């Protein structure tokens, strides 16, 4: 069939032309839904191998490197694009529609990229396409946020290109395969992946930009960029030990920030960061089972994270706010959204029978089997932390807790469908994980539903819930208040600009002082010279110009007289 010959990403790019030709409305909506379906079917039918090699300035680019690892990520990206576009059915904004297609296409292209140059092109493609989902909000704040986002994302791409160039000089190949950290080339590539994966201290673009995007844009953003980075790390740096520690820190610090954050979409962004940590730990451990854990957790995570962003987005769509301090009691008139949100919350918290449980335990189990006691303890703690913000805070303070008095209408039908399908998948994976396990890169020999697993996890979660109950009843739990919290981005948003302003001020004052000093000296010298040689000066006093002229006149007169007389 012809369609097998086309790189999957190109299907999305070609669809942009079709979309632009179609009128706004249901026709365009259907096309936007069809593209990921066709792409998904194509990916499903692909045989492992390398296709679509093209020559490019003497390099051979592998546009389609199909194996089980790239396939599972491409499939979930297609699914996420479908669900995102269904959720965005009401959007009549061409910018967002085109951006979503180009973004999904680039992410899928990057996943299939067999070499570093192809990867770089798609890597930048995701950056450029996705920023329009932020700018599409069309507000001053969104503009500035988008710029900050773009600086980080493009920066990541440029670092990748630098790394790829060095890598080529070092090894003579541009193939994107497993690498060993050590040379500047591999460190640069690692750093580039790390920026997109929101490593600690490189993470702020995530919490900054996702809450600033449009209602539907955030849902689409949440699926691709960071999971592309997870894929790239799994492909390039599996078994790199430092990732275990980076990942553990990633699971840990966002839970504190998420707990006190007021904007629920930012809470979810912190929570996303924490979930990435689990995947990164899996990559760091690097065993077949751990990588299975990472891939399956990415798959499940994209679904339940989308679901949570969708439910909070629906609330924002109906009420105009996603701030916990302004919400509460919405279950009365938005009960379906509330139920879907609870499914997402249960899935991310990894309650048994929900998707997070069957995927996260793969990683936790490998951390235990690999004898990383501290890492394991951190991950278990972080699991309780996930419950605190995504499991409890998001549904509780939006749909329950105190009554905000808001009585918004239930979410529109297409949003309910998008949330319903996603919620169904979250539960289906949780109850029957075998089809997902079959998609994973390696054979799976794992049984999540053992008594010990189920009871252990239920104990962890239910006792944590009990602690929440105690803290609420005693009034110790921090209230939701209208405020923002500083994070590391304060360094480059406030501190560094202020520092630069200080230094600039100091330099300019120093310069002015120096200039004034020399100007004064010059003026003094000029004045001294003037007083000595000026018309009133002492030097000019004895021999004035007038005297000179007089003497010349006298000499001239004498000469005339002598001339006349002789």
């Amino acid at each position: 069939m012809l369609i097998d010959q086309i790189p999957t990403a190109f299907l999305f790019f070609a669809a942009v032309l079709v979309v632009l030709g179609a009128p706004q409305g249901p026709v365009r909506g259907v096309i936007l839904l069809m593209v990921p379906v066709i792409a998904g079917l194509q990916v499903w039918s692909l045989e492992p191998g390398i296709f679509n090699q093209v020559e490019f300035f003497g390099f051979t680019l592998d546009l389609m490197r199909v194996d089980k690892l790239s396939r599972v990520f491409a499939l979930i990206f297609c699914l996420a694009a479908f669900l995102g576009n269904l959720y965005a059915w009401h959007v009549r904004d061409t910018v967002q529609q085109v951006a979503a297609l180009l973004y999904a296409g680039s992410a899928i292209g990057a996943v299939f990229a067999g070499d570093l140059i192809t990867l770089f092109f798609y890597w930048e493609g995701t950056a450029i396409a996705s920023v329009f989902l932020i700018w599409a909000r069309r507000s001053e704040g969104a503009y500035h946020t988008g710029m900050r986002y773009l600086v980080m994302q493009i920066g990541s791409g440029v670092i990748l290109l630098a790394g790829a160039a060095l890598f080529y000089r070092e090894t003579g190949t541009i193939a994107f395969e497993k690498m060993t950290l050590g040379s500047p080339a591999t460190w640069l590539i690692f750093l580039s992946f790390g920026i997109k994966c929101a490593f600690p201290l490189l993470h702020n673009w995530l919490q900054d930009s996702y809450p600033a995007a449009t209602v539907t844009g955030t849902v689409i953003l949440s699926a691709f960029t960071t999971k592309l980075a997870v894929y790239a790390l799994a492909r390039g740096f599996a078994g790199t030990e430092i990732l275990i520690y980076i990942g553990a820190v990633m699971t840990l610090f966002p839970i504190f920030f998420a707990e006190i954050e007021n904007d629920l979409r930012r809470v979810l962004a912190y929570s996303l960061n924490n979930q990435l940590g689990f995947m990164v730990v899996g990559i760091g451990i690097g065993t077949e089972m751990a990588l299975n854990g990472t891939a399956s957790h990415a798959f499940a995570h994209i679904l339940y994270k989308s679901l949570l962003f969708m439910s909070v987005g629906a609330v924002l769509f109906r009420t105009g706010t996603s701030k916990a301090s302004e919400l509460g009691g919405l279950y009365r008139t938005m009960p379906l959204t509330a139920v879907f949100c609870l499914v997402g919350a249960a899935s991310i918290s990894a309650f048994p029978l929900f998707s997070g449980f069957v995927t996260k335990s793969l990683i936790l189990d490998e951390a235990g089997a690999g004898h990383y006691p501290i890492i394991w303890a951190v991950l278990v703690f972080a699991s309780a932390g996930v419950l605190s913000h995504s499991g409890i805070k998001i549904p509780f303070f939006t749909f329950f807790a105190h009554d905000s008095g808001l009585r918004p209408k239930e979410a529109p039908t297409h949003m309910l469908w998008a949330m319903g399908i996603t919620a169904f998948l979250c539960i289906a994976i949780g109850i029957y994980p075998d089809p997902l396990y079959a998609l994973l890169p390696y054979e799976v020999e794992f049984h999540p539903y053992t008594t010990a697993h189920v009871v252990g996890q239920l104990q962890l979660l239910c006792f944590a819930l009990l602690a929440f109950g105690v803290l609420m009843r005693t009034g110790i739990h921090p209230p939701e208040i209208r405020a923002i919290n500083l994070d590391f981005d304060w360094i480059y948003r406030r501190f560094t600009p202020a520092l630069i302003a200080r230094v600039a001020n100091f330099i300019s004052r120093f310069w002015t002082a120096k200039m004034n000093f020399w100007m004064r000296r010059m003026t003094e010298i000029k004045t001294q010279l003037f007083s000595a040689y000026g018309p009133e000066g002492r030097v000019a006093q004895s021999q004035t110009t007038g005297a000179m002229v007089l003497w010349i006149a006298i000499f001239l007169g004498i000469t005339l007289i002598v001339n006349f007389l002789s």
Partner: protein
Amino acid sequence: MPNENSDNYPWLGRMFLWVDKPGSANKIFWGLAVFCGLLFLIDFFYEKHGHFDIEHIPGFYGIYGFVMFTGLILLAKGLRVIIKRPEDYYADKAVDREEYPDDQLEKVDHNAD
């Protein structure tokens, strides 16, 4: 919401109303406490195959979850004291103080129709 008629709510919403009835919060809390107690007791009745010795302590996960969750909340509360700032801290460079543009929303009240 004076004079509000809860009969207008969707049926699912009406079913949830139970949680706001006086005493329901207590019932949920104590129900959860009893369930936690049961989970603790179950630990004595099956064989564990944990990777670490600490996992074999009865109720380990429960105790760990309770203590760490409480610690997390208290630490986060302390953290807030240090890093909390007003919403307009970053002024027009961030979306925090902005209203979401109304023309991109469909703010409909439930009682409107």
